């Protein structure tokens, strides 16, 4: 096993509800993500998989246990501008053009914008020629590409993707998966992807973690055997279909299986 990058050590998270009750979103989550590993977190909606990602991004603090990235608090990573994130909502700033949006992490970090790097990233995600366009002028898929380019801008140590293609139609989504696979294979950044799509998780990840809900816990941890870079034909592989069936079954609510 390689060096651990992200470590969730018996992490629990509960939220106080308006009616005074406690909602336990996560309990006893133990998860290690190795350096340069791509892990997909799969689960039904409301199982707390986004909360896991938010804990790693220092957007939430755990109620129990400890989250560390390279042995330090997640805040240390974001404060050092070493974290890249993309959400389901592209979160591009509507008043900036695509170039300025992708360059935003440089500015927030107080660094000089590396024009060549921004241009290269825009090319990498296939948006060359759209530098001066505003987010509203682009399609949903193009906006997501821009937000992924932005996440990569500072060559982060860790990439956190929270259903980045969740709002896209199936065709665009598959296309975006191919693109992300290509981009990722070139950079190999430690990545945590939250998704509810089995195909997406299998095609992109080195390891797939399946969660079940209320309270969220890990019920499956499967290594994905396919070689990289992966070709779309992988999705027609017999082994791929077996894994799809296995994971789909694991996602079924308990007791619902025949």
């Amino acid at each position, binding site marked *: 096993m390689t060096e651990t990058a992200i470590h969730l050590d018996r992490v629990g998270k509960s939220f106080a509800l308006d009616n005074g009750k406690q909602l336990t979103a996560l309990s006893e989550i133990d998860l290690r993500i190795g350096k340069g590993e791509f892990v997909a977190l799969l689960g039904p909606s409301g199982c707390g998989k986004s909360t896991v990602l938010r804990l790693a991004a*220092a*957007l939430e603090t755990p109620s129990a246990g400890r989250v560390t990235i390279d042995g330090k608090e997640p805040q240390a990573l974001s404060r050092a*501008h070493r974290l890249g*994130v993309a*959400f389901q909502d592209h*979160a591009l*700033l509507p008043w900036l053009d695509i170039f300025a949006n992708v360059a935003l992490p440089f500015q927030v*970090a*107080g660094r000089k914008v590396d024009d060549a790097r921004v241009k290269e990233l825009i090319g990498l995600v296939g948006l060359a020629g759209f530098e001066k366009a505003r987010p509203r002028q682009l399609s949903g898929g193009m906006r997501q590409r821009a937000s992924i380019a932005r996440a990569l801008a500072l060559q982060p140590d860790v990439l*956190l993707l929270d259903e980045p293609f969740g709002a896209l139609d199936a065709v665009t989504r598959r296309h975006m998966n191919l693109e992300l696979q290509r981009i990722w294979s070139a950079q190999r950044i430690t990545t945590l992807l939250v998704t509810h799509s089995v195909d997406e998780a299998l095609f992109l990840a080195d390891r797939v973690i399946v969660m079940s809900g209320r309270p969220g816990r890990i019920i499956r941890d499967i290594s994905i055997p396919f070689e990289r870079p992966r070709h779309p034909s992988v999705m027609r592989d017999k082994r791929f279909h077996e894994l799809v069936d296995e994971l789909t079954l694991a996602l079924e609510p308990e007791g619902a299986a025949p």
Partner: protein
Amino acid sequence: MTLQSEAVHRLVLGAVGVGLFLAIWQVIGTYRLAGMTWPPLTDVLAFIADPSKQGLFVRAMLASFASVALGYVVGILSGVAAAMLGQVLPIMRPGLDRLVAVIHAVPLVALAPVFMVLANRDLTPPAISALGVFYMIYVATTSGLKAASHTHRDLFTALGSSPTSRFLRLELPAALPALVSGMKLAIPVAFIGTIVGEWFGASRGLGLLMVSAMQNFQIPLLWSAVLIVTTASLALFGLMSLFERLVYGRFQ
């Protein structure tokens, strides 16, 4: 195409409405349907255009419009500054909110005589304008500074943004549409403040002209002053609406 024809449709309807309003004014005035104090529109326009009255109107307009501009600018700057203070120093926020609410609860008309005895009488109109505008802009800016979405805030946190960078790159630009809407709504407020201030005895201005014309039964003069103020206020309001549309297109 449909959007364009819709805009044309609205423009035509608006023009018809204004035309009808002016025509009814003219008819009522011509046939004295509302008595001697309602002159026809053409009489009022002829009165304004009369070269011997030019000096009087220009002096009054300069005085009033200077008050409106001063009150508007001071109100906007202080309103934005107070809202930013509440944002940068959250501990100030509840106190500021309450203070502003109290200021707003005091009727501006009741404050005018107090200003008159306290300060320079010619500073009363811009002071009352500024107070009204201040309230409007404070409310618009504070709500605007909250307009940035949760995802945008999360993004800035994850990028390791400093509070200053977050304020300048996210909260401030996100607040601009609300601020500009506030600036549009503040235009008539600035005019009202100035005119009310002038009623209480400024030495110059359209408000003063209205009061003296009313007391001396100079009916065409009274209507002329009212028409000038109304037209100016509406024209600036219209301009700000255009600007507002521009800002919304860019920042939302």
